[in-house]
């Protein structure tokens, strides 16, 4: 099964500034995931100052707010996508994310939904919709 591990640095953009040692430790960790045959994909994200939020409220049209955002708890710094045998294995990998003394951050572990997780009605709708290759629905 697939799990997404979200890195939540728990600091605002300008405080997020890992040392070269912290970077090296993170690279070693990523290599460990690769060598164990579990890493499918990973990415790091730019600071929220380069991002935006699009909010939907009730009947109003969506509103766009440019970054940076200050509530550091909600910021996501990156993710890993891993393929493991159980939730426990995913959690075990999350506890191995390198931790530089004194830093605090959070890793959120979430299971990726698969087709078979949906009820049959939903699967049928998806099946019908996906009959046309996606390329044909876009204007080219």
């Amino acid at each position, binding site marked *: 099964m697939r799990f997404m591990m979200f890195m939540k640095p728990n600091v605002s953009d300008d405080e997020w500034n890992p040392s070269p040692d912290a970077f090296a430790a993170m690279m070693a960790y990523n290599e460990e995931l690769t060598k164990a045959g579990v890493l499918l994909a990973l990415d790091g994200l730019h600071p929220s100052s380069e991002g935006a939020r699009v909010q939907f409220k009730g009947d109003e049209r969506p509103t766009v707010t440019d970054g940076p955002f200050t509530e550091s708890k909600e910021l996501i710094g990156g993710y890993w996508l891993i393929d493991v045998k159980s939730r426990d294995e995913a959690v075990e990998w999350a506890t191995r994310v390198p931790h530089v003394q004194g830093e605090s951050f959070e890793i959120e572990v979430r299971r990726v939904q698969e087709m078979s997780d949906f009820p049959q009605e939903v699967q049928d709708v998806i099946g019908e919709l996906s009959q046309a290759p996606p*390329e044909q629905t876009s204007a080219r």
Partner: protein
Amino acid sequence: MAATNAAIDAVWRIESARVIAAVARVVRDVGLAEDLAQDALVAALEKWPEAGVPDNPGAWLTATAKHGAIDLLRRRATLERKHEQLARELEDREDPDVAAAIDDQVGDDLLSLVFTTCHPVLSTEARIALTLRLLGGLTTEEIARAFLVPTPTVAQRISRAKRTLAEANVPFEVPAGGELRARLGSVLEVVYLIFNEGYSATAGDDWLRPELCHEALRLGRILAELAPREPEVHGLVALMEIQQSRARTRVGPRGEPVLLLDQDRSRWDRLLIRRGLAALQRAEALGEAYGPYTLQAAIACHHARARTPEETEWLRIVALYDALAELTPSPVVELNRAVAVAMAFGPEAGLEAVDALAEDKTLAGYHLLPSVRGELLARLGRHAEASAEFARAASLTRNEQERRLLLERAVRRP
């Protein structure tokens, strides 16, 4: 404390192969190494719930298992002096920084373990069982359920395999020079057999059967990092990633197989396709002639790149099948080649290629031969002959839903 037990299970899944490999290097017996690793696991189950999981659980397990080895060799040493010497050497070699020492050696140890569990002195079934047990960390019961055989049969296979390895004095090492390539073939074969066993699972089977595909993929991905200079390892990984990318489209709602050209391509797993293409690139970048896995991967990648069956580069695929047929001649390869020929050059040319196989005895009971022939005859407008072929294919398939579809084809007129 249930939470800790679950954590220990997870640690075992991640670390067991490395622990067994590290201990096998010193005791030079994979059976004994597994026993010692299991003892270390039991010790962890006693200690960790109270003391907490150590910072480096893998190093803890390895150190504990090695101490167990020293104790055991000491006890035996009262009978054999040779072992006492080995025990002393072991202790002398004990590094203060266990974790660092393990890390340096771990790649070689794991590779030695793979080459041992896939040693040609063992039967194919024994290789598969031992590899899943020692490298995949699967229990005997899990292996038995996945392969639809009784647990005692697998237990016997594993214990006999360990005995065979010990009796044949199989060295715990990575084969050197030219032997490496030859022995690697046996390793890749085992991994692909595990994958295919999972791939052949049908609806209603135990969920552990399709899990075998994930096990094989994980083993393949690990091998790709252990032996990055071997193109066929990347070829096999690419082949498995691409095949797995189609897993959810290859069976219809009623359990009938859906052939490649009829599959809903929008539901192929793009992530696995991307990984497959990348793995094929790693194989090609090594600049050697394509081996059989890389050739099959290259064919699979051509299909994966085509967004519709019509966009497929059939000429390239025919050329790849030509190369594959030369390297590993087989009637099944020829039949697949014939399908590609029909797509590239028309049904007449395809039919000619299929008819060349008609006398082949190995294909005598294979339902895809008449089914392909029927398809080509229908395209040529020879409907009576096509019907007869579909009826014959229906009588040969073991899949009930497929039989129904083939019989429908047999009576349908355009």
